[in-house]
Protein backbone atom coordinates (compact mmCIF):
# COMPACT_ATOMS: atom_id res chain seq x y z
CA UNK A 1 0.00 0.00 0.00
CA UNK A 2 1.21 3.44 -0.82
CA UNK A 3 2.38 5.10 2.37
CA UNK A 4 0.66 8.37 1.54
CA UNK A 5 -2.78 6.93 1.09
CA UNK A 6 -5.33 8.05 3.64
CA UNK A 7 -6.98 5.26 5.49
CA UNK A 8 -10.04 7.29 6.42
CA UNK A 9 -12.41 9.58 4.63
CA UNK A 10 -11.59 13.24 4.64
CA UNK A 11 -12.69 14.90 7.83
CA UNK A 12 -14.36 17.62 5.83
CA UNK A 13 -14.96 16.64 2.24
CA UNK A 14 -14.87 19.88 0.29
CA UNK A 15 -18.10 19.14 -1.53
CA UNK A 16 -18.54 22.66 -2.83
CA UNK A 17 -15.09 22.93 -4.36
CA UNK A 18 -14.69 20.51 -7.18
CA UNK A 19 -12.52 22.56 -9.48
CA UNK A 20 -9.04 21.32 -10.12
CA UNK A 21 -6.76 22.86 -7.49
CA UNK A 22 -3.51 24.66 -8.33
CA UNK A 23 -0.11 23.02 -8.02
CA UNK A 24 1.55 20.09 -9.73
CA UNK A 25 0.14 17.42 -7.43
CA UNK A 26 -3.58 16.95 -7.32
CA UNK A 27 -5.58 14.90 -4.90
CA UNK A 28 -8.61 13.18 -6.37
CA UNK A 29 -11.85 14.12 -4.62
CA UNK A 30 -13.17 10.65 -5.37
CA UNK A 31 -10.47 8.27 -4.11
CA UNK A 32 -8.11 10.69 -2.32
CA UNK A 33 -5.10 9.46 -4.31
CA UNK A 34 -2.44 11.92 -5.41
CA UNK A 35 -1.72 12.35 -9.09
CA UNK A 36 0.58 14.54 -11.10
CA UNK A 37 -1.25 17.29 -12.96
CA UNK A 38 -0.08 15.87 -16.29
CA UNK A 39 -1.79 12.55 -15.57
CA UNK A 40 -5.08 14.27 -14.73
CA UNK A 41 -4.86 16.53 -17.73
CA UNK A 42 -4.14 13.65 -20.08
CA UNK A 43 -7.30 11.98 -18.79
CA UNK A 44 -9.34 15.15 -19.57
CA UNK A 45 -9.49 16.06 -15.88
CA UNK A 46 -10.79 12.73 -14.73
CA UNK A 47 -9.14 10.48 -12.18
CA UNK A 48 -7.01 7.78 -13.85
CA UNK A 49 -7.89 5.41 -11.04
CA UNK A 50 -11.52 5.97 -9.98
CA UNK A 51 -12.87 7.94 -12.97
CA UNK A 52 -13.88 10.86 -10.79
CA UNK A 53 -14.75 13.79 -13.09
CA UNK A 54 -13.28 17.11 -12.00
CA UNK A 55 -15.25 20.25 -12.66
CA UNK A 56 -13.70 22.28 -15.47
CA UNK A 57 -14.45 25.67 -17.00
CA UNK A 58 -16.37 26.16 -20.23
CA UNK A 59 -13.28 26.86 -22.31
CA UNK A 60 -11.64 23.60 -21.26
CA UNK A 61 -14.82 21.62 -21.88
CA UNK A 62 -15.31 23.08 -25.35
CA UNK A 63 -11.72 22.03 -26.01
CA UNK A 64 -12.66 18.40 -25.25
CA UNK A 65 -15.51 18.46 -27.79
CA UNK A 66 -14.44 20.68 -30.64
CA UNK A 67 -11.79 20.48 -33.35
CA UNK A 68 -8.70 22.46 -32.34
CA UNK A 69 -8.97 26.18 -33.05
CA UNK A 70 -12.43 25.79 -34.57
CA UNK A 71 -14.34 27.69 -31.87
CA UNK A 72 -15.50 31.20 -32.49
CA UNK A 73 -17.11 32.84 -29.49
CA UNK A 74 -20.15 35.12 -29.77
CA UNK A 75 -21.80 37.56 -27.36
CA UNK A 76 -18.80 37.29 -25.06
CA UNK A 77 -19.40 40.62 -23.37
CA UNK A 78 -23.13 40.32 -22.88
CA UNK A 79 -23.52 41.17 -19.21
CA UNK A 80 -26.12 41.41 -16.49
CA UNK A 81 -27.76 44.65 -15.48
CA UNK A 82 -29.51 44.83 -12.16
CA UNK A 83 -33.19 45.24 -13.10
CA UNK A 84 -34.46 44.56 -9.56
CA UNK A 85 -31.89 46.60 -7.66
CA UNK A 86 -31.29 43.40 -5.71
CA UNK A 87 -29.40 43.56 -2.44
CA UNK A 88 -28.78 40.74 0.03
CA UNK A 89 -25.54 40.58 1.98
CA UNK A 90 -24.04 42.17 -1.12
CA UNK A 91 -25.52 44.24 -3.94
CA UNK A 92 -26.09 42.16 -7.09
CA UNK A 93 -24.27 44.84 -9.10
CA UNK A 94 -21.15 44.45 -6.96
CA UNK A 95 -21.46 40.68 -7.02
CA UNK A 96 -21.45 40.76 -10.82
CA UNK A 97 -18.48 43.12 -10.94
CA UNK A 98 -16.41 41.03 -8.56
CA UNK A 99 -17.34 37.82 -10.39
CA UNK A 100 -16.24 39.30 -13.71
CA UNK A 101 -12.99 40.34 -12.12
CA UNK A 102 -12.42 37.00 -10.42
CA UNK A 103 -13.32 34.68 -13.30
CA UNK A 104 -12.60 36.79 -16.36
CA UNK A 105 -16.06 35.74 -17.58
CA UNK A 106 -19.04 38.03 -18.08
CA UNK A 107 -21.68 35.50 -17.14
CA UNK A 108 -22.30 31.79 -16.61
CA UNK A 109 -22.29 30.52 -20.21
CA UNK A 110 -19.90 30.69 -23.16
CA UNK A 111 -21.54 30.42 -26.57
CA UNK A 112 -20.34 30.28 -30.12
CA UNK A 113 -19.86 28.21 -33.23
CA UNK A 114 -17.34 25.41 -33.68
CA UNK A 115 -16.66 22.22 -35.55
CA UNK A 116 -16.72 18.58 -34.55
CA UNK A 117 -14.77 16.52 -37.07
CA UNK A 118 -15.47 19.26 -39.58
CA UNK A 119 -19.22 19.46 -38.84
CA UNK A 120 -20.44 22.90 -37.80
CA UNK A 121 -22.30 23.13 -34.48
CA UNK A 122 -23.81 25.98 -32.48
CA UNK A 123 -22.62 25.32 -28.96
CA UNK A 124 -22.76 26.68 -25.43
CA UNK A 125 -21.07 25.52 -22.24
CA UNK A 126 -21.81 26.76 -18.74
CA UNK A 127 -19.38 27.94 -16.06
CA UNK A 128 -20.33 26.79 -12.57
CA UNK A 129 -17.74 29.17 -11.13
CA UNK A 130 -19.87 32.18 -12.12
CA UNK A 131 -22.52 32.50 -9.34
CA UNK A 132 -23.07 28.75 -9.30
CA UNK A 133 -23.72 28.64 -13.03
CA UNK A 134 -27.03 30.31 -12.34
CA UNK A 135 -29.35 31.33 -15.16
CA UNK A 136 -30.45 34.95 -15.35
CA UNK A 137 -31.30 37.16 -18.31
CA UNK A 138 -27.82 36.88 -19.87
CA UNK A 139 -27.72 33.07 -19.91
CA UNK A 140 -31.25 33.04 -21.35
CA UNK A 141 -30.42 35.55 -24.07
CA UNK A 142 -27.15 33.82 -25.01
CA UNK A 143 -28.95 30.49 -25.38
CA UNK A 144 -31.66 32.21 -27.45
CA UNK A 145 -28.98 33.56 -29.77
CA UNK A 146 -27.24 30.17 -29.93
CA UNK A 147 -30.56 28.74 -31.17
CA UNK A 148 -30.80 31.53 -33.74
CA UNK A 149 -27.28 30.72 -34.96
CA UNK A 150 -28.16 27.04 -35.29
CA UNK A 151 -31.23 27.96 -37.35
CA UNK A 152 -29.30 30.41 -39.52
CA UNK A 153 -26.51 27.91 -40.21
CA UNK A 154 -28.90 24.94 -40.35
CA UNK A 155 -26.65 23.13 -37.88
CA UNK A 156 -27.17 21.16 -34.65
CA UNK A 157 -27.24 22.75 -31.20
CA UNK A 158 -25.22 21.44 -28.26
CA UNK A 159 -25.62 22.82 -24.73
CA UNK A 160 -23.36 21.72 -21.88
CA UNK A 161 -25.04 22.43 -18.53
CA UNK A 162 -23.55 22.86 -15.10
CA UNK A 163 -25.77 24.97 -12.91
CA UNK A 164 -27.47 25.42 -9.58
CA UNK A 165 -30.60 26.65 -11.38
CA UNK A 166 -32.30 29.99 -11.94
CA UNK A 167 -30.54 33.05 -10.50
CA UNK A 168 -32.35 34.43 -7.48
CA UNK A 169 -31.03 37.97 -7.90
CA UNK A 170 -33.14 38.52 -11.01
CA UNK A 171 -36.34 37.16 -9.44
CA UNK A 172 -39.17 36.34 -11.83
CA UNK A 173 -37.00 37.42 -14.76
CA UNK A 174 -34.76 34.41 -14.11
CA UNK A 175 -37.80 32.16 -13.92
CA UNK A 176 -38.87 33.52 -17.31
CA UNK A 177 -35.56 32.44 -18.84
CA UNK A 178 -36.82 28.87 -18.42
CA UNK A 179 -39.80 29.82 -20.59
CA UNK A 180 -37.57 31.74 -22.98
CA UNK A 181 -35.12 28.87 -23.61
CA UNK A 182 -38.01 26.41 -24.04
CA UNK A 183 -39.71 28.78 -26.51
CA UNK A 184 -36.52 29.04 -28.55
CA UNK A 185 -36.14 25.26 -28.58
CA UNK A 186 -39.63 25.08 -30.13
CA UNK A 187 -38.31 27.19 -33.00
CA UNK A 188 -35.31 24.86 -33.36
CA UNK A 189 -37.60 21.83 -33.38
CA UNK A 190 -39.80 23.40 -36.07
CA UNK A 191 -36.72 23.48 -38.30
CA UNK A 192 -35.98 19.83 -37.48
CA UNK A 193 -32.50 20.64 -36.23
CA UNK A 194 -31.06 18.31 -33.59
CA UNK A 195 -30.29 19.41 -30.05
CA UNK A 196 -27.93 17.45 -27.82
CA UNK A 197 -27.99 18.28 -24.10
CA UNK A 198 -24.95 17.33 -22.04
CA UNK A 199 -25.34 17.51 -18.28
CA UNK A 200 -22.35 17.87 -15.97
CA UNK A 201 -22.11 17.91 -12.21
CA UNK A 202 -24.27 19.55 -10.97
CA UNK A 203 -27.31 20.34 -13.10
CA UNK A 204 -30.29 21.28 -10.93
CA UNK A 205 -33.32 23.54 -10.55
CA UNK A 206 -34.57 25.73 -13.34
CA UNK A 207 -31.86 24.68 -15.77
CA UNK A 208 -32.78 21.00 -15.49
CA UNK A 209 -36.47 21.94 -15.60
CA UNK A 210 -36.03 23.74 -18.90
CA UNK A 211 -33.46 23.38 -21.68
CA UNK A 212 -31.25 20.70 -20.09
CA UNK A 213 -34.04 18.07 -20.08
CA UNK A 214 -35.29 18.99 -23.55
CA UNK A 215 -32.52 17.48 -25.66
CA UNK A 216 -33.39 15.19 -28.54
CA UNK A 217 -30.63 13.25 -26.84
CA UNK A 218 -29.76 13.82 -23.17
CA UNK A 219 -26.27 12.77 -22.09
CA UNK A 220 -24.80 12.89 -18.58
CA UNK A 221 -21.29 12.51 -17.23
CA UNK A 222 -20.76 9.70 -14.72
CA UNK A 223 -22.00 10.42 -11.19
CA UNK A 224 -23.11 13.95 -12.08
CA UNK A 225 -25.78 15.27 -9.71
CA UNK A 226 -28.87 15.97 -11.79
CA UNK A 227 -32.27 16.88 -10.42
CA UNK A 228 -34.96 19.45 -9.83
CA UNK A 229 -34.81 20.04 -6.08
CA UNK A 230 -31.43 19.96 -4.40
CA UNK A 231 -30.68 16.97 -2.13
CA UNK A 232 -30.53 19.18 0.96
CA UNK A 233 -34.01 20.57 0.35
CA UNK A 234 -35.45 17.10 -0.21
CA UNK A 235 -33.79 15.78 2.91
CA UNK A 236 -35.19 18.69 4.91
CA UNK A 237 -38.68 18.17 3.49
CA UNK A 238 -38.98 14.43 4.03
CA UNK A 239 -36.80 14.29 7.14
CA UNK A 240 -35.05 11.13 5.99
CA UNK A 241 -31.66 10.24 4.53
CA UNK A 242 -31.60 9.91 0.79
CA UNK A 243 -30.90 6.57 -0.88
CA UNK A 244 -27.39 5.82 -2.16
CA UNK A 245 -26.78 7.22 -5.62
CA UNK A 246 -30.02 9.26 -5.58
CA UNK A 247 -30.06 11.97 -8.30
CA UNK A 248 -26.79 10.75 -9.80
CA UNK A 249 -26.45 10.35 -13.58
CA UNK A 250 -26.76 6.55 -13.34
CA UNK A 251 -30.00 6.96 -11.34
CA UNK A 252 -31.43 9.16 -14.10
CA UNK A 253 -30.41 6.60 -16.71
CA UNK A 254 -32.15 3.89 -14.70
CA UNK A 255 -35.30 6.04 -14.34
CA UNK A 256 -35.31 6.91 -18.04
CA UNK A 257 -34.43 10.60 -18.10
CA UNK A 258 -31.07 10.49 -19.84
CA UNK A 259 -30.20 8.45 -22.93
CA UNK A 260 -26.72 7.60 -21.75
CA UNK A 261 -24.01 8.17 -19.20
CA UNK A 262 -20.76 8.85 -21.02
CA UNK A 263 -17.22 9.13 -19.70
CA UNK A 264 -15.61 12.42 -20.61
CA UNK A 265 -12.95 10.62 -22.63
CA UNK A 266 -15.68 9.22 -24.90
CA UNK A 267 -17.87 12.31 -25.07
CA UNK A 268 -16.57 13.80 -28.32
CA UNK A 269 -16.74 10.46 -30.12
CA UNK A 270 -20.27 9.81 -28.84
CA UNK A 271 -21.53 13.25 -29.90
CA UNK A 272 -19.85 12.80 -33.27
CA UNK A 273 -21.53 9.43 -33.87
CA UNK A 274 -24.91 10.90 -32.97
CA UNK A 275 -24.44 13.93 -35.22
CA UNK A 276 -23.60 11.64 -38.13
CA UNK A 277 -26.82 9.69 -37.58
CA UNK A 278 -28.81 12.90 -37.49
CA UNK A 279 -27.18 14.20 -40.63
CA UNK A 280 -27.11 11.15 -42.90
Amino acid sequence: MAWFRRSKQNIDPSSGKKEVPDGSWIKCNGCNEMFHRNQIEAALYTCPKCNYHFRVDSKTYLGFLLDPKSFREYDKKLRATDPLGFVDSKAYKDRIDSMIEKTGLYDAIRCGVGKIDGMTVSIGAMDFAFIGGSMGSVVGEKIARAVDRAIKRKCPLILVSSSGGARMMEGALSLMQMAKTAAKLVQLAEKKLPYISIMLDPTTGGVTASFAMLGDVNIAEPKALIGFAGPRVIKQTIGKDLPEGFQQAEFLLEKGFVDMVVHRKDMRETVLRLLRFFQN
Partner: protein
Amino acid sequence: MAKTILEFEKPIIELEKKIEEMRSMSSDLDISNEIEALERRVNDLRKSIFSGLSRWQRVQLARHPDRPLTMDYLEMMETDFIELHGDRHFGDDHAIVGGFGQLDGKTIMFIGHQKGRDTKSNLYRNFGMANPEGYRKALRLMKMAEKFDKPVITLIDTPGAYPGIGAEERGQAESIARNLFEMCRLRVPIIVTIIGEGASGGALGIGIGDRILMMENTWYSVIAPESCSSILWRSWEYKEQAAEALKLTGEDLLELGVIDRIIEEPRGGAHRNPAEAAFILKNTLLEELEDLLKSTPDKRVKDRIKKFSSIGYYEE
Protein backbone atom coordinates in the same frame (compact mmCIF):
# COMPACT_ATOMS: atom_id res chain seq x y z
CA MET B 1 -66.64 37.94 7.89
CA ALA B 2 -63.08 36.70 7.74
CA LYS B 3 -62.16 33.89 10.10
CA THR B 4 -58.46 34.62 10.14
CA ILE B 5 -57.31 38.18 10.64
CA LEU B 6 -53.84 39.36 9.66
CA GLU B 7 -52.12 41.89 11.88
CA PHE B 8 -52.54 44.77 9.43
CA GLU B 9 -56.20 43.92 8.81
CA LYS B 10 -57.08 44.33 12.51
CA PRO B 11 -57.86 48.08 12.65
CA ILE B 12 -60.20 47.73 9.65
CA ILE B 13 -62.03 44.72 11.03
CA GLU B 14 -62.42 46.34 14.47
CA LEU B 15 -64.01 49.43 12.96
CA GLU B 16 -66.30 47.28 10.84
CA LYS B 17 -67.42 45.43 13.96
CA LYS B 18 -68.19 48.71 15.66
CA ILE B 19 -70.33 49.83 12.73
CA GLU B 20 -72.18 46.53 12.84
CA GLU B 21 -72.88 46.97 16.56
CA MET B 22 -74.13 50.49 16.06
CA ARG B 23 -76.40 49.34 13.27
CA SER B 24 -78.02 46.81 15.53
CA MET B 25 -78.72 49.55 18.08
CA SER B 26 -79.95 52.08 15.55
CA SER B 27 -83.52 50.83 15.64
CA ASP B 28 -83.86 52.58 19.00
CA LEU B 29 -81.66 55.61 18.36
CA ASP B 30 -81.00 57.83 15.41
CA ILE B 31 -77.25 57.54 14.98
CA SER B 32 -77.14 57.32 11.19
CA ASN B 33 -74.81 60.32 11.03
CA GLU B 34 -72.35 58.65 13.34
CA ILE B 35 -72.52 55.45 11.34
CA GLU B 36 -71.92 57.33 8.13
CA ALA B 37 -68.90 59.06 9.63
CA LEU B 38 -67.50 55.74 10.79
CA GLU B 39 -68.03 54.23 7.36
CA ARG B 40 -66.07 57.05 5.81
CA ARG B 41 -63.34 56.42 8.35
CA VAL B 42 -63.15 52.72 7.65
CA ASN B 43 -63.01 53.43 3.92
CA ASP B 44 -60.14 55.87 4.35
CA LEU B 45 -58.37 53.49 6.66
CA ARG B 46 -58.72 50.62 4.22
CA LYS B 47 -57.45 52.79 1.42
CA SER B 48 -54.43 53.95 3.35
CA ILE B 49 -53.53 50.47 4.61
CA PHE B 50 -54.00 48.76 1.25
CA SER B 51 -52.22 51.41 -0.79
CA GLY B 52 -49.18 51.14 1.43
CA LEU B 53 -48.89 47.36 1.66
CA SER B 54 -45.36 46.04 1.85
CA ARG B 55 -44.40 43.18 -0.45
CA TRP B 56 -44.33 40.81 2.49
CA GLN B 57 -47.89 41.83 3.41
CA ARG B 58 -48.94 40.96 -0.15
CA VAL B 59 -47.36 37.54 0.30
CA GLN B 60 -49.41 37.14 3.49
CA LEU B 61 -52.60 38.12 1.66
CA ALA B 62 -51.80 35.68 -1.15
CA ARG B 63 -51.61 32.94 1.52
CA HIS B 64 -54.60 34.12 3.53
CA PRO B 65 -56.39 31.02 4.85
CA ASP B 66 -59.77 32.39 3.75
CA ARG B 67 -58.65 33.30 0.24
CA PRO B 68 -60.64 31.60 -2.55
CA LEU B 69 -58.89 28.60 -4.12
CA THR B 70 -59.07 27.22 -7.66
CA MET B 71 -62.16 25.08 -7.08
CA ASP B 72 -63.90 27.98 -5.33
CA TYR B 73 -63.43 30.20 -8.36
CA LEU B 74 -64.58 27.43 -10.72
CA GLU B 75 -67.75 27.14 -8.67
CA MET B 76 -68.35 30.86 -8.20
CA MET B 77 -67.77 31.58 -11.90
CA GLU B 78 -70.54 29.02 -12.57
CA THR B 79 -68.38 27.02 -14.95
CA ASP B 80 -70.29 23.74 -14.54
CA PHE B 81 -66.83 22.19 -14.06
CA ILE B 82 -66.43 18.47 -14.64
CA GLU B 83 -63.14 17.19 -13.27
CA LEU B 84 -61.00 14.78 -15.29
CA HIS B 85 -58.41 12.70 -13.49
CA GLY B 86 -55.04 11.10 -14.03
CA ASP B 87 -51.98 11.35 -16.24
CA ARG B 88 -52.55 7.87 -17.82
CA HIS B 89 -49.03 6.83 -16.78
CA PHE B 90 -48.65 6.85 -13.04
CA GLY B 91 -51.55 8.30 -11.12
CA ASP B 92 -53.76 11.23 -10.28
CA ASP B 93 -52.15 14.21 -8.58
CA HIS B 94 -54.53 15.95 -6.18
CA ALA B 95 -52.41 19.12 -6.13
CA ILE B 96 -53.45 19.95 -9.69
CA VAL B 97 -57.06 19.76 -10.87
CA GLY B 98 -58.28 19.94 -14.42
CA GLY B 99 -61.31 19.41 -16.58
CA PHE B 100 -63.93 20.93 -18.84
CA GLY B 101 -66.05 23.86 -17.84
CA GLN B 102 -67.74 26.78 -19.51
CA LEU B 103 -67.59 30.54 -19.43
CA ASP B 104 -70.45 32.41 -21.00
CA GLY B 105 -71.42 29.30 -22.94
CA LYS B 106 -67.92 28.66 -24.32
CA THR B 107 -66.23 25.35 -23.47
CA ILE B 108 -62.94 25.85 -21.65
CA MET B 109 -60.27 23.47 -20.38
CA PHE B 110 -59.59 24.65 -16.83
CA ILE B 111 -56.40 23.60 -15.06
CA GLY B 112 -55.23 24.84 -11.67
CA HIS B 113 -53.25 24.13 -8.54
CA GLN B 114 -55.48 23.14 -5.66
CA LYS B 115 -54.55 23.78 -2.03
CA GLY B 116 -56.54 22.54 0.94
CA ARG B 117 -58.45 24.50 3.59
CA ASP B 118 -57.54 22.54 6.70
CA THR B 119 -54.93 19.99 7.75
CA LYS B 120 -56.83 17.06 6.33
CA SER B 121 -57.56 18.59 2.95
CA ASN B 122 -54.07 20.07 2.78
CA LEU B 123 -52.55 16.64 3.25
CA TYR B 124 -54.83 15.34 0.51
CA ARG B 125 -53.82 18.22 -1.77
CA ASN B 126 -50.15 18.06 -0.72
CA PHE B 127 -50.43 21.81 0.10
CA GLY B 128 -50.77 22.55 -3.61
CA MET B 129 -47.31 21.13 -4.36
CA ALA B 130 -47.54 19.02 -7.50
CA ASN B 131 -45.62 15.89 -8.45
CA PRO B 132 -44.64 15.05 -12.06
CA GLU B 133 -47.96 13.27 -12.67
CA GLY B 134 -49.73 16.58 -11.94
CA TYR B 135 -47.84 18.35 -14.72
CA ARG B 136 -48.36 15.37 -17.02
CA LYS B 137 -52.09 15.32 -16.31
CA ALA B 138 -52.16 19.04 -17.11
CA LEU B 139 -50.35 18.37 -20.39
CA ARG B 140 -52.71 15.53 -21.31
CA LEU B 141 -55.69 17.82 -20.78
CA MET B 142 -54.11 20.66 -22.73
CA LYS B 143 -53.42 18.34 -25.65
CA MET B 144 -57.04 17.24 -25.55
CA ALA B 145 -58.14 20.89 -25.52
CA GLU B 146 -55.97 21.43 -28.59
CA LYS B 147 -57.47 18.41 -30.33
CA PHE B 148 -61.00 19.74 -29.86
CA ASP B 149 -60.05 23.37 -30.34
CA LYS B 150 -60.99 24.56 -26.85
CA PRO B 151 -59.16 27.39 -25.07
CA VAL B 152 -57.12 26.67 -21.92
CA ILE B 153 -57.34 28.71 -18.72
CA THR B 154 -54.90 27.96 -15.91
CA LEU B 155 -55.12 29.19 -12.32
CA ILE B 156 -51.84 29.25 -10.42
CA ASP B 157 -51.61 28.88 -6.64
CA THR B 158 -48.63 26.87 -5.42
CA PRO B 159 -45.77 27.16 -2.92
CA GLY B 160 -43.67 25.19 -5.44
CA ALA B 161 -43.31 21.80 -7.08
CA TYR B 162 -42.94 19.04 -4.49
CA PRO B 163 -39.33 18.29 -3.49
CA GLY B 164 -39.57 14.57 -2.76
CA ILE B 165 -37.85 11.30 -3.62
CA GLY B 166 -40.71 10.04 -5.78
CA ALA B 167 -40.95 13.37 -7.58
CA GLU B 168 -37.29 13.13 -8.58
CA GLU B 169 -37.58 9.46 -9.53
CA ARG B 170 -40.46 10.25 -11.85
CA GLY B 171 -38.72 13.26 -13.39
CA GLN B 172 -40.04 16.46 -11.82
CA ALA B 173 -37.63 18.51 -13.93
CA GLU B 174 -38.53 16.72 -17.16
CA SER B 175 -42.25 17.07 -16.56
CA ILE B 176 -41.98 20.83 -16.04
CA ALA B 177 -39.56 21.30 -18.96
CA ARG B 178 -41.88 19.31 -21.24
CA ASN B 179 -44.85 21.48 -20.28
CA LEU B 180 -42.94 24.69 -21.02
CA PHE B 181 -42.05 23.35 -24.45
CA GLU B 182 -45.50 22.02 -25.30
CA MET B 183 -47.37 25.03 -23.93
CA CYS B 184 -45.23 27.33 -26.07
CA ARG B 185 -46.57 25.63 -29.18
CA LEU B 186 -50.12 24.73 -28.15
CA ARG B 187 -52.42 25.95 -30.92
CA VAL B 188 -55.35 27.05 -28.76
CA PRO B 189 -55.43 30.22 -26.64
CA ILE B 190 -53.96 29.95 -23.13
CA ILE B 191 -54.72 32.45 -20.38
CA VAL B 192 -52.72 32.15 -17.16
CA THR B 193 -53.83 33.79 -13.91
CA ILE B 194 -51.94 33.87 -10.62
CA ILE B 195 -54.71 33.66 -8.01
CA GLY B 196 -52.50 33.18 -4.93
CA GLU B 197 -48.90 32.03 -4.78
CA GLY B 198 -46.76 31.63 -7.86
CA ALA B 199 -43.58 29.93 -6.72
CA SER B 200 -40.88 28.98 -9.15
CA GLY B 201 -40.91 26.14 -11.68
CA GLY B 202 -43.89 24.62 -9.90
CA ALA B 203 -45.96 27.61 -11.01
CA LEU B 204 -44.38 27.99 -14.44
CA GLY B 205 -45.13 24.32 -15.21
CA ILE B 206 -48.69 25.42 -16.04
CA GLY B 207 -47.74 29.07 -16.55
CA ILE B 208 -46.99 29.58 -20.25
CA GLY B 209 -49.69 31.47 -22.11
CA ASP B 210 -50.76 34.22 -24.45
CA ARG B 211 -51.79 36.38 -21.51
CA ILE B 212 -50.30 36.30 -18.02
CA LEU B 213 -52.56 37.91 -15.43
CA MET B 214 -52.07 38.44 -11.72
CA MET B 215 -54.72 39.14 -9.16
CA GLU B 216 -53.91 42.17 -7.07
CA ASN B 217 -52.84 40.43 -3.86
CA THR B 218 -50.66 37.64 -5.21
CA TRP B 219 -46.98 37.02 -5.74
CA TYR B 220 -44.92 35.37 -8.46
CA SER B 221 -41.19 34.71 -8.37
CA VAL B 222 -38.30 32.34 -8.84
CA ILE B 223 -38.33 31.33 -5.16
CA ALA B 224 -40.41 31.87 -2.03
CA PRO B 225 -39.15 34.71 0.20
CA GLU B 226 -38.44 32.31 3.10
CA SER B 227 -36.29 30.01 0.97
CA CYS B 228 -34.51 32.98 -0.59
CA SER B 229 -33.79 34.28 2.91
CA SER B 230 -32.41 30.94 4.05
CA ILE B 231 -30.07 30.69 1.06
CA LEU B 232 -28.84 34.27 0.67
CA TRP B 233 -29.04 35.44 4.29
CA ARG B 234 -28.43 31.98 5.73
CA SER B 235 -31.39 32.44 8.07
CA TRP B 236 -35.19 32.23 7.79
CA GLU B 237 -35.50 35.60 9.53
CA TYR B 238 -35.03 37.84 6.50
CA LYS B 239 -38.21 36.94 4.64
CA GLU B 240 -39.46 40.55 4.61
CA GLN B 241 -36.21 41.79 3.07
CA ALA B 242 -36.20 38.89 0.63
CA ALA B 243 -39.77 39.69 -0.43
CA GLU B 244 -38.75 43.31 -1.04
CA ALA B 245 -35.62 42.32 -2.96
CA LEU B 246 -37.41 39.77 -5.18
CA LYS B 247 -39.89 42.38 -6.54
CA LEU B 248 -42.63 39.79 -6.63
CA THR B 249 -45.88 41.77 -6.80
CA GLY B 250 -48.13 42.40 -9.77
CA GLU B 251 -47.01 46.03 -10.03
CA ASP B 252 -43.35 44.99 -10.03
CA LEU B 253 -43.85 42.34 -12.68
CA LEU B 254 -46.02 44.53 -14.90
CA GLU B 255 -43.21 47.07 -14.89
CA LEU B 256 -40.57 44.42 -15.62
CA GLY B 257 -42.59 43.08 -18.55
CA VAL B 258 -43.21 39.64 -17.03
CA ILE B 259 -47.02 39.90 -16.84
CA ASP B 260 -49.67 41.60 -18.96
CA ARG B 261 -52.34 42.74 -16.53
CA ILE B 262 -53.33 43.04 -12.89
CA ILE B 263 -56.84 41.98 -11.90
CA GLU B 264 -58.37 44.22 -9.29
CA GLU B 265 -59.67 42.60 -6.10
CA PRO B 266 -62.60 43.69 -3.93
CA ARG B 267 -61.81 46.16 -1.15
CA GLY B 268 -59.73 44.46 1.52
CA GLY B 269 -58.76 41.54 -0.74
CA ALA B 270 -60.44 38.59 -2.45
CA HIS B 271 -61.09 36.82 0.87
CA ARG B 272 -63.33 39.66 2.07
CA ASN B 273 -65.68 39.23 -0.86
CA PRO B 274 -65.01 36.04 -2.82
CA ALA B 275 -68.13 36.38 -5.00
CA GLU B 276 -67.08 39.80 -6.23
CA ALA B 277 -63.51 38.59 -6.79
CA ALA B 278 -64.86 35.73 -8.91
CA PHE B 279 -67.11 38.12 -10.84
CA ILE B 280 -64.19 40.41 -11.71
CA LEU B 281 -62.01 37.42 -12.63
CA LYS B 282 -64.67 35.98 -14.90
CA ASN B 283 -65.22 39.25 -16.75
CA THR B 284 -61.49 39.75 -17.21
CA LEU B 285 -61.01 36.22 -18.55
CA LEU B 286 -63.89 36.66 -21.00
CA GLU B 287 -62.47 39.96 -22.19
CA GLU B 288 -59.01 38.49 -22.79
CA LEU B 289 -60.44 35.40 -24.41
CA GLU B 290 -62.51 37.37 -26.86
CA ASP B 291 -59.41 39.23 -27.88
CA LEU B 292 -57.31 36.08 -28.32
CA LEU B 293 -59.97 34.29 -30.36
CA LYS B 294 -59.69 37.02 -33.01
CA SER B 295 -56.19 35.74 -33.81
CA THR B 296 -55.22 32.55 -35.67
CA PRO B 297 -53.41 29.51 -34.18
CA ASP B 298 -50.24 30.23 -36.20
CA LYS B 299 -50.18 33.85 -35.14
CA ARG B 300 -50.87 33.03 -31.49
CA VAL B 301 -48.01 30.54 -31.30
CA LYS B 302 -45.68 32.93 -33.07
CA ASP B 303 -46.65 35.79 -30.75
CA ARG B 304 -46.34 33.57 -27.68
CA ILE B 305 -42.82 32.48 -28.60
CA LYS B 306 -41.88 36.06 -29.32
CA LYS B 307 -43.39 37.23 -26.02
CA PHE B 308 -41.28 34.86 -23.91
CA SER B 309 -38.18 35.18 -26.11
CA SER B 310 -38.00 38.89 -25.47
CA ILE B 311 -38.10 38.82 -21.65
CA GLY B 312 -34.85 39.82 -19.96
CA TYR B 313 -32.46 42.68 -19.23
CA TYR B 314 -28.81 42.75 -20.31
CA GLU B 315 -26.10 44.99 -21.69
CA GLU B 316 -24.06 44.38 -24.83
